[in-house]
């Protein structure tokens, strides 16, 4: 007779793999966007930072590092968002990686 040793999965999380992979919707990315304002001015928005972090303190450091102004905006659907004056996308991503707030592959830089 053929003996089948069937392993019955007991405590198996079927989504364990999906969380590690970068399938859409599996991981929260940090989106860094740019928006054009009048003239050559622009605005950088940082969306999707973890809620545990104190946005105000991050903002304070960002402002000090990049010598720009900025504020935290409360959005209905997307939660808190950091706004910074000027095109600070690369600097923000560098800052987030250096301080260990986010990993490099979590950060998505949008815009041109």
């Amino acid at each position, binding site marked *: 007779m053929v003996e089948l040793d069937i392993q019955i999965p007991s405590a198996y999380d079927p989504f364990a793999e999906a969380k590690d992979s970068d*399938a*859409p*919707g599996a991981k929260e990315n940090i*989106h860094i*966007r*740019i*928006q*054009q*304002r*009048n003239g050559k001015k622009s*605005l950088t*928005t940082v*969306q999707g930072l973890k809620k545990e972090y104190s946005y105000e303190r991050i903002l304070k450091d960002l402002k000090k590092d990049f010598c720009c102004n900025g504020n935290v*905006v409360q*959005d209905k659907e*997307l939660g808190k*968002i950091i*706004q910074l004056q000027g095109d600070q996308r690369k600097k923000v991503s560098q800052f987030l990686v250096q301080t260990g707030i986010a990993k490099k592959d979590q950060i998505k830089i*949008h*815009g*041109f």
Partner: protein
Amino acid sequence: MADEINEIREEQEQLAPFDPSKKKKKKKVVIQEPVEDLAESSQTEKSDSLPVNDGLESSFTGMKKKKKKPTESSLLNNESVDAGEDLDEIANDEQEGEEGIVLQQRYPWEGSERDYIYDELLGRVFNILRENNPELAGDRRRTVMRPPQVLREGTKKTVFVNFMDLCKTMHRQPDHVMQYLLAELGTSGSLDGQQRLVVKGRFAPKNFEGILRRYITDYVICLGCKSPDTILSKENRLFFLRCEKCGSQRSVAPIKTGFVARVSRRKT
């Protein structure tokens, strides 16, 4: 690296008139293999076209002196530095080959005691494959997209002229591409009467190009076979990308606009 190749080639040239020794053969093999690999793996037309010819000729005129040619042309592929010189040499070789003065083996392992190695056999297989049915050898043509043409309308609006053309070459719905572009640029825009895309804000063609590049990697190119021959379909709210070449299917992320800060002045 390039210097080395040059040196080796010069050596070969010196050796060429004499009886082809084993040492020379081995050296040739060493140079030849990576190039063939390149030709097979890369999708560039330029590097593909030449090895195809090599394969055909070397297998047709089997016992003639043809072994030198592939290396020469492969060098041409690698570095187009002294291209003219190489071309002359190739011509010489061909004449020699047609006269059939020097007999040489068809494959590098023939006539020697050593065993053939995998890469040589692989090259042989691909040569035969190209000879008999070239479409199976994996030579793909490259789809070329024209650069975006951008005009300024007034000072605050940008017109993307060949938007429809690019959508057609990508085989994507203009709506989808537009949604992505506007989301990435963080502005608003619309299609005008001549099917051009009018975007609010000032943007350079380079900006559009970068975004389109990202769009293509995200929503057009098949991850499995890298072919742009794909279809994007929507099945109950989810977008799926199906490849026409290899049949693989994957889901793609929906386009999210994300947060858009309020830039214009508030009306009181």
